[in-house]
């Protein structure tokens, strides 16, 4: 009971002391608020986008590897057999891929065309789900992404068993010699996958490998899709393939991409944190300057308080509480403004070049982030107030009472 009485009295005295020097306190609080503002705003937005990107890349399968032929190299059965012979390999299937134009009434949309073993596709991309129809078996039946079947407004244009007319490049001897149209049925429609970074299933027409060869007329495989038994084998398989094929094959492991993105976003996070720390460091100096001035101005008052029975520890606590109260107000202000700023920043969206994908995600303001920011800001109060509070507590009462 007596502790709480003392504590609340000290808080009240601290607030009174701050209110006396209102303009100085407000400016110091504004200085303190910049750190938490930057930290909350930037961290929540960066972590929201980076988590999304990493999650998307990760969803492509941590045990998946894709190999593509480099210029002037053709993948053949021998390569496929070699890959399949590696003990770490669970499955390896070739695929064909190309770009095409789909006529949808009067409009034409750009689509990706992948001819790949359907079971491998669903095995590799675990979150890929069919919303209408079943995995087709016929040569002329395709699986189409959500954006192929539905217009942007949400209106369905292609239903099951509708015919798609795709215009694809005609390739002869590895060169585009013209265009040709192919017609396939809609055998199944996928659920919306969301923005994808490497493959975009929503804008893709999937065909069977047989259809790839016969309908698309592609003789050379575009690549081989590989699944290893365990994600821990990815590194060794990538290494084996790179050392064997050197400049002949491009080997891409999705887990490595996720790792790379993760390390980039970690670096961005660290830079952001360091920038915020600079703001925090400036705030420490600001608090220290304010509190030292305040202590100097109140030296005589401190002497009186000591004379009437305040202990050195109580004087230290009083002064320290003032700086902590300022930092708590600064933290509240900074976190609130940071939250608003984060929402404004993320509402602008993030366009990822190359894939033409625009993401608009809510900032990731977590209790951990708030607590971390709050702790750091309170630390500002403690650090900035420590020296002035210590000095105030050490002033002998008679010296303080003589102070003019």
């Amino acid at each position, binding site marked *: 009971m007596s502790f709480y009485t*003392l504590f609340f009295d000290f808080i009240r005295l601290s607030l009174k002391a701050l209110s006396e020097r209102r303009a100085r306190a407000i400016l110091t609080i504004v200085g303190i608020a910049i750190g938490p503002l930057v930290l909350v705003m930037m961290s929540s937005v960066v972590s929201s986008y980076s988590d999304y990107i990493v999650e998307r890349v990760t969803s492509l399968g941590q045990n998946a590897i894709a190999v593509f032929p480099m210029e002037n190299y053709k993948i053949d059965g021998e390569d496929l057999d070699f890959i399949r012979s590696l003990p770490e390999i669970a499955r390896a299937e070739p695929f064909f891929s190309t770009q095409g134009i789909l006529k949808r009434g009067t409009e034409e949309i750009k689509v990706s065309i992948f001819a790949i073993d359907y079971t491998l596709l669903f095995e590799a991309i675990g979150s890929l789900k069919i919303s209408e129809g079943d995995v087709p078996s016929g040569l002329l039946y395709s699986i189409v992404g959500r954006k192929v079947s539905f217009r942007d407004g949400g209106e369905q244009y292609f239903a099951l068993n509708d015919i798609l007319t795709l215009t694809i490049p005609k390739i002869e001897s590895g060169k585009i010699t013209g265009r040709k149209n192919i017609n396939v049925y809609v055998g199944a429609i996928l659920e919306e996958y969301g923005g994808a970074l490497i493959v975009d299933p929503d804008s893709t027409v999937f065909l069977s490998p047989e259809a790839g060869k016969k309908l698309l007329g592609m003789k050379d495989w575009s690549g081989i899709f590989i699944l290893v038994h365990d994600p821990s084998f990815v590194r060794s398989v990538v290494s084996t393939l790179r050392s064997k094929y050197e400049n002949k094959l491009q080997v891409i492991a999705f887990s490595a991409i996720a790792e790379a993105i993760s390390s980039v976003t970690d670096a961005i996070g660290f830079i952001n944190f360091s920038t915020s720390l600079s703001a925090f460091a400036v705030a420490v100096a600001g608090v220290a300057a304010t509190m030292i001035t305040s202590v100097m101005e109140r030296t005589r008052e401190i002497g009186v308080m000591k*004379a*009437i*029975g305040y202990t*050195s520890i109580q004087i230290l606590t009083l002064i320290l509480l003032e700086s902590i109260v300022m930092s708590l107000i600064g933290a509240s202000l900074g976190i609130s403004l940071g939250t608003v700023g984060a929402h404004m920043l993320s509402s602008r969206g993030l366009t990822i070049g190359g894939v033409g994908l625009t993401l608009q995600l809510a900032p990731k303001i977590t209790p951990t982030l708030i607590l971390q920011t709050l702790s750091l800001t309170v630390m500002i109060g403690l650090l900035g107030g420590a020296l002035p509070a210590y000095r105030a507590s050490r002033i002998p009462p008679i010296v303080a009472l003589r102070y003019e």
Partner: protein
Amino acid sequence: MENSKKILIELVNVYKEYRVSEISTLALKNVNFKVYEGDLVAIMGPSGSGKTTLLNMLGLLDRPTSGKILFEDKDTSKLSDKELALLRNIKLGFVFQIFNLVNRLTVFENIELPLIPRAVPRSLRAEMVKEALLKAGGELEWLKKKPNQLSGGQQQRVAIARAIVGNPPIVLADEPTGNLDRASAKIIIETFLNLNRKGHSVIVVTHDPEVANCMRNIYVIRDGAIMGAYEPNPSESLISKMM
């Protein structure tokens, strides 16, 4: 004649030396002084005579260079700063020449300041503050005002209320009338006399003979040494002169 009253504070062979760079000043020289229960004492002396230093020793605000200060028979040299602060809070009340009130706080908050470090429950404080203010000759309507809304005399009464709110047995006043006109000074001295009648020991440091003559005993200090005790001359006191 040996005083039968209880000794509250006793200075035994106290020396106090201040040292600034190479120069040292002996502010108190072999001072022996006793404060008894119920005392009404004036310590007189010219500027720089050591009277404030003596008051600081009596108020446990400073430690002697040599000698002992006994507080209720306890050697204070063995007490920590925290214990000294507690003694000051419970046993001593201070009144200063320039009032030393905190202007951002109300009169109520100023008077309750000594009650905070000992965590007196808030429910008891209002009554204690009001009682102290009335005892110090103040008016309850001042409680919500800020000190700078009061006259000098009124502020000094608030300062006295702050000194006695915890009901300490000893009140120490350093030139309490130094910043006041004669009429206000008279009121303040009457307040001290009244406090003494109610059982507080009052020690007033002053260079004003008219103030000193209002007390029961006068000690004269010069060059850091107590020259002796003198009987006051009531006809030369501030109170009789202002009548």
